[in-house]
């Protein structure tokens, strides 16, 4: 019997396991990533939930929107991250359609735009610190840096994984019948964008 990975008919990699009872209806890696994302939902719930609770308990500890934080730059950065979600999903579509060149360049774009987001965020941090808005600056500073910092950490991890996927794409690893890696990193990436959509609203605008 040959190695299991080659014994499968084309396309079966992206279907649920063949010789098994009906489970989730999707292949293992996609199920695994969704399950992992649920844990991430709870993680951000702890951070964002604490922010909401603390703000309820002492609203006067917060400045008005825009007073301390730079809304214009962050609004642009939000748009930048949304763009990277679009390039990501275009990469996925390219993989599904077998357009190797498009796949590679959409992935490169996602990496670059994602890295830009992190860079702008880091720049924003240096500006804030310069104006003495630091993590120890009351409840406002504590919650701001913890929430955005861990989001930024997740984006950074995403960029690193994306670089790996891009490298694999340049080696032709993804075909229309098996582009699991692209779909799975895509789910993570969109999730990170989704969290930012929430964060931007409640941290910067409210």
């Amino acid at each position, binding site marked *: 019997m040959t190695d299991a990975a080659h014994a499968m008919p084309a396309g079966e990699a992206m279907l649920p396991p063949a010789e098994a009872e009906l489970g989730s*209806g999707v292949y293992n890696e996609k*199920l695994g990533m969704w399950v992992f994302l649920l844990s991430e939902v709870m993680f951000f719930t702890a951070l964002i*939930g604490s922010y909401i609770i603390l703000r309820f308990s002492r609203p006067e500890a917060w400045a008005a929107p825009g007073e301390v934080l730079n809304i214009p730059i962050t609004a642009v950065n939000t748009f930048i991250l949304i*763009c990277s979600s679009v390039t990501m999903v275009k990469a996925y579509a390219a993989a599904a359609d077998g357009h190797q060149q498009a796949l590679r360049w959409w992935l490169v774009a996602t990496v670059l735009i994602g890295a830009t987001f992190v860079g702008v965020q880091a720049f924003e941090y240096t500006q804030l610190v310069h104006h003495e808005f630091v993590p120890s600056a009351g409840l406002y500073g504590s919650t701001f840096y913890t929430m955005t910092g861990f989001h930024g950490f997740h984006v950074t991890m995403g960029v690193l994984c994306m670089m790996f996927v891009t490298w694999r794409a340049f080696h032709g690893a993804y075909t229309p019948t098996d582009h699991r890696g692209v779909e799975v990193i895509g*789910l993570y990436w969109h999730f990170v964008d*989704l969290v930012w959509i929430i964060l931007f609203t409640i941290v910067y*605008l409210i």
Partner: protein
Amino acid sequence: MEHAARRHPNYIGVWFFLAVLTAAELGVAFLPRFSKQTIILFLILLAVWKALLVALYFMHLRFENNRIRLLVVAPLPLAAILVVAVIQEFR
């Protein structure tokens, strides 16, 4: 899911809509005519709308089977319980 004759959703269209909603958020946040409560409500609605667009179209939840959709929404009530319950401490 069949991958053979696949038609993709209009990703660019969704992108445009997300941009519009983001602009709307900025508008609402800084419009003086609404009360603080109303502004917050609108902002949250707009944010949730954007999040749903990303989840449904970019993460393809619109096209997944019900099991996956059920899996995904399951923890949300838990998150709500935590926040709602603990806020009672500070009313």
